[in-house]
């Protein structure tokens, strides 16, 4: 555990090595990446198991001195960190493996692996950070890694736009985080989590300031985790290669926002207003994204909206003081969503399209992918016995117990939507007739299916670490020796579990009716409520709204400033130059070549001097 700092360094090594020598290694680069992330994974597991028996370990060195203040860098292994280390390194390793098959034949194969290494390094660095500043540093770096990977197909205009959008939207959030963090620094005098919690505990910070900083920090999480209103970049980010979507935009980076809130939970917990904000934003995002997901046609976009929606769930949990529920769902979601993405990638790999309307009947052709996809779908839909069921249940209970009744029902509706659109997806892709000219559809190679199988297993079993039936091991462990995090398990009324089960089954049933059995016309919504459909299909026109407001305003401001630049700033300069020039013209006009004029000027000068002298000197009285 003392050497946990080495975990992020393996992928960094991979990044540097591949950047320098990748070109020569070609596709063998994958092995470098795989071996090094495996090393991280193994060591993470070691650390995790050590953490079960040992207290939190923390080490730091001075990074930068500002006057008397020493900013430090270091690492910390607490429960949450240890858990995150394993999740991140595991998913990363699996994605590394999967990509060997998926990216086969790409000219910039080694670059892809280098970027993956960079991202994994940043993500692992993020989760071991013991202070806000270091968190922020890696927070930005994961953003950069994500940006590079989204724009991996740089020659595609869409990829370029998506990468840019992702970076800028998350940066808006980051600025919030930055401001919040700096304000907090001047309150506490340190970026250390411990110091912050201690200050909060001692009441050294005013309530208003806690709320302000907490919300500002949450803004950072909003950007990173694709919460409303900064969520629009995440679906667009699907322009990146699918393994990337699985790793970054499903399992790890987007969960960083949730992680951040969780890591700073004692701060948030100290402000009811902040918690409420988080809960509302989370619930709203959950339902909003889920409703958009209902009508999307791109397989990855559906998954992306589902990610947004699930992240909303996690936020809702945290906002409802359900620390364990949020982290738990973060974990299970990482597995099943990564699984779904990898499976989707496998599908895309097979049929070379992402439009679900061009798919269908793949159940028979993709014998391995299809069941795995189904597992993921069941998990996310919250069908009992799958991991998602337990974690979602925890969330609903937390919400209810915390008293957010309205948000609770929103979450329930969102769960219904989730079940519906996920099965809509499943049915459209795997059942029915093959709709397009898919001539040769092959199952993916084992290097791709192996990770899926691992995730599939986890998607089923991961939920059992924290169940009301077999014990809340995870929850108890997570909150051990820290009262601020709340209880390991929150007891809730039993009917919640039933409601959750019922709505998810209802959703599945409805999806089956429409897309499986086809007893309801598929264009039912389109025909009956074209307006609603269009609004949903166009994602509530949020992008367009931004285009009209923020972007227009920016452009307008730019135009005003460039007017100032051209006419006022430059104009003044021109004016001064013009005056000097004009004086020159007048002067040289007076210099008319007439010698008598010269004498006259001299005489007039003399006369003026004498007159003024006489007047001012008081000699003429």
């Amino acid at each position, binding site marked *: 555990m003392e050497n946990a700092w080495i975990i992020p360094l393996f992928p960094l090594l991979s990044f540097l090595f591949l950047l320098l020598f990748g070109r020569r290694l070609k596709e063998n680069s994958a092995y470098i990446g795989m071996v090094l992330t495996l090393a991280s994974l193994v060591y993470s597991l070691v650390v995790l198991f050590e953490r079960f028996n040992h207290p939190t370990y923390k080490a730091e060195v001075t990074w930068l*001195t500002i006057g008397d203040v020493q900013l430090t860098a270091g690492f910390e292994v607490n429960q949450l960190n240890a858990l995150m280390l394993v999740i991140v390194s595991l998913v990363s390793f699996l994605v590394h493996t999967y990509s060997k098959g998926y990216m086969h034949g790409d000219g910039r194969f080694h670059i892809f692996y280098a970027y993956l290494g960079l991202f994994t390094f940043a993500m692992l660095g993020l989760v071991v950070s013991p202070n806000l500043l270091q968190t922020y540093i890696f927070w*930005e770096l994961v953003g950069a890694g994500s940006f590079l990977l989204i724009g991996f197909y740089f020659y595609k205009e869409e990829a370029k736009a998506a990468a*840019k959008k992702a970076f800028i939207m998350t940066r808006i959030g980051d*600025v919030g985080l930055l401001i919040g963090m700096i304000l907090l620094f001047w309150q506490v005098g340190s970026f250390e989590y411990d110091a912050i919690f201690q200050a909060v505990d001692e009441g050294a910070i005013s309530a208003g300031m806690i709320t302000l900083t907490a919300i500002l920090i949450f803004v950072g999480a909003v950007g990173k985790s694709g919460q409303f209103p900064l969520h629009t970049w995440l679906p667009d980010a699907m322009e990146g290669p699918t393994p990337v979507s699985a790793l970054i935009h499903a399992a790890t980076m987007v969960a960083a926002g949730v992680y951040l809130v969780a890591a700073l939970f004692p701060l948030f917990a100290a402000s009811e207003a902040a918690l409420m904000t988080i809960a509302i934003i989370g619930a709203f995002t959950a339902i909003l994204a889920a409703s958009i997901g209902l009508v999307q046609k791109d397989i990855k976009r559906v998954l992306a909206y589902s990610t947004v929606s699930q992240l909303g769930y996690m936020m809702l949990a945290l906002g409802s003081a359900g620390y364990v529920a949020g982290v738990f769902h973060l974990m299970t979601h990482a597995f099943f969503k990564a699984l779904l993405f990898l499976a989707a990638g496998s599908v895309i790999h097979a049929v070379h399209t992402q439009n679900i309307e061009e798919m269908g009947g793949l159940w028979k052709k993709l014998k391995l992918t299809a069941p795995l996809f189904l597992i993921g779908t069941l998990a996310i839909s919250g069908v009992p016995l799958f991991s998602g069921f337990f974690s979602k249940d925890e969330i609903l209970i937390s919400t209810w117990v915390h008293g957010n009744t309205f948000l609770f029902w929103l979450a329930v509706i969102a769960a219904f939507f989730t079940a519906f659109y996920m099965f809509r997806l499943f049915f459209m892709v795997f059942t029915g007739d093959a709709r397009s000219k898919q001539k040769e559809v092959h199952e993916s190679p084992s290097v791709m299916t192996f990770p899926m199988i691992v995730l599939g297993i986890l998607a089923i079993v991961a939920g059992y670490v924290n169940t009301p039936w077999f014990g809340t091991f995870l929850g108890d462990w997570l909150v051990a020796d820290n009262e601020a995090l709340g209880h390991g398990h929150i007891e809730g009324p039993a009917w919640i579990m039933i409601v959750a089960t019922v709505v998810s089954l209802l959703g599945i049933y409805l999806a089956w009716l429409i897309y499986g059995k086809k007893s309801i016309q598929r264009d039912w919504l389109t025909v009956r409520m074209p307006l609603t459909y269009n609004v949903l299909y166009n994602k509530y026109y949020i992008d367009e709204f931004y285009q009209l407001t923020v972007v227009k305003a920016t452009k307008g401001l730019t135009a005003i400033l460039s007017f100032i630049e051209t006419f006022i700033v430059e104009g003044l300069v021109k004016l001064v130059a013009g005056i000097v020039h004009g004086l020159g013209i007048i002067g040289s006009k007076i210099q008319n070549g007439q010698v008598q004029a010269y004498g006259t000027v001299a005489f007039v000068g003399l006369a003026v001097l004498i007159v003024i002298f006489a007047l001012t000197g008081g000699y003429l009285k």
Partner: protein
Amino acid sequence: MNEYFLSILVFSPLLGIAVLALMPKTQEVAIKTVGFLATLPALVLALVAFIGGSDHLKKYDIQIEWIRFGDYEVFDLFKIDYELGLNGFSLVLIVLTAVISTLAAIASVHIKKEWKGYFMLFLLLEVGMLGVFAAQNLILFFIFFEITMIPMFFLIGKWGYFEKEKAAYSYLIYNGLGSAILLIVIMVLFARTGTANYDALAQLMAVENANTVAPFSETLKFGLLIALLIAFGVKLPIFPLHTWMLRVHVQAPPAIVMLHSGILLKIGAFGLIRFGMGIFPEQFKSIAVLLAVLGVVNLLYGAFLAFKQSDFKMVLAYSSISHMGIVLIGLGALNEAGIQGAIFQVVSHGLISALLFFLVGVFYERFHTSTIANLGGMAKGMPLTAGFLLAGALASLGLPGMSGFVSEFMAFLGLFEEMPILAAIGCIGIIITAVYLLRAVLGMTYGKANRDFIAVSDLKSVEFIPVVALLALIILIGVYPSVLSDPLHSTLETIMLGLGG
């Protein structure tokens, strides 16, 4: 040896000038090699001093009597010594100057004509820049300051692009006015106290109604500080005194812009810190708010206008304005974090803009354009160039792990303590910076290829050196900022002591 160390360091490029003067003007390769080699002694010596640590800088001081006006030897007044010295801050800037000069000399491989004259002026410019930072009295400072101006005028006017003469004149007049104001300040100080030495002046100014040759009212001190602000505001540049540097950025040859943007602009910041804060700390406090506001205005103004430009060089020019805003923000904060941030930004921006302009030179050499729209999809034909360009842009927009972040962070950290609301407004600049840089860089490197990149070669061997060296330094500072903050420590303490905080 120690006594003459600094003099040798500062004047070592003159050796190169002497050698060049004796060379026939047609031998391109030999001239370029000599020009490059002539920058090395300064670099080596600067690094020696840097590695030697910042605790023993006093030993490099040199003081030789030089000019004495009037007949006041008895009172030891009105004398201008030849005195050079170092403190942590100037040492850092000297190292920066030496490094960027060497790299710019390499970047000068792209120069097409009259290499001999070019390198002679180039080396003279280097002498001026090194001297500016090493000088220990105002007049010597001013002399070196002006020495930078003349070679720059020629370098822009002769080796620049289409509107080079206009740019050269712009440069000359604005900087002429700036240095004119500076000269007045210097001469008021010198004439009325009889000394131009920094430390002596700082001591005299610290005392109210000090015993000077001619009286010094508080109003006068304040006026002098404002004049200093304007003088260095031209150099930095501060809105609305910035238009000249846009032309220079666009018209001057990239190697020269590396120096201009990398170092010359920094003299403004150096002056504000060294003289503004050093000599008039009391008055400086009262304009801190003004500085911070100007900083935010600079930051936002530059950023928004950079967003609109179609020429990448213009983007970088406005970006320089924007980034210098951060320096002002740091100075306006007037606390350790802010000032350290400002100094970091000075160094960091020097490296980053040198890197970016070097790359501009690289692709301009190949495509003869720097218009963003004409360069789309460069990553396809020149992946390395595009990659470094992207890295440079990320550094510039303050990605952690690179130097830009550390400085930006500290500057804002400082300002948030003093003026949180203003700082929050300034933070919008961080977003816009990302917006315009990505727009420009992605516009050039990503997307569909607009032109045929087949016949175009990527970075060549010699071009790697500056790119890699600069990027390495940028990352070094970003990852291990103590490399910069340690030498600055004592200087900052002195400044803070002067500010009484």
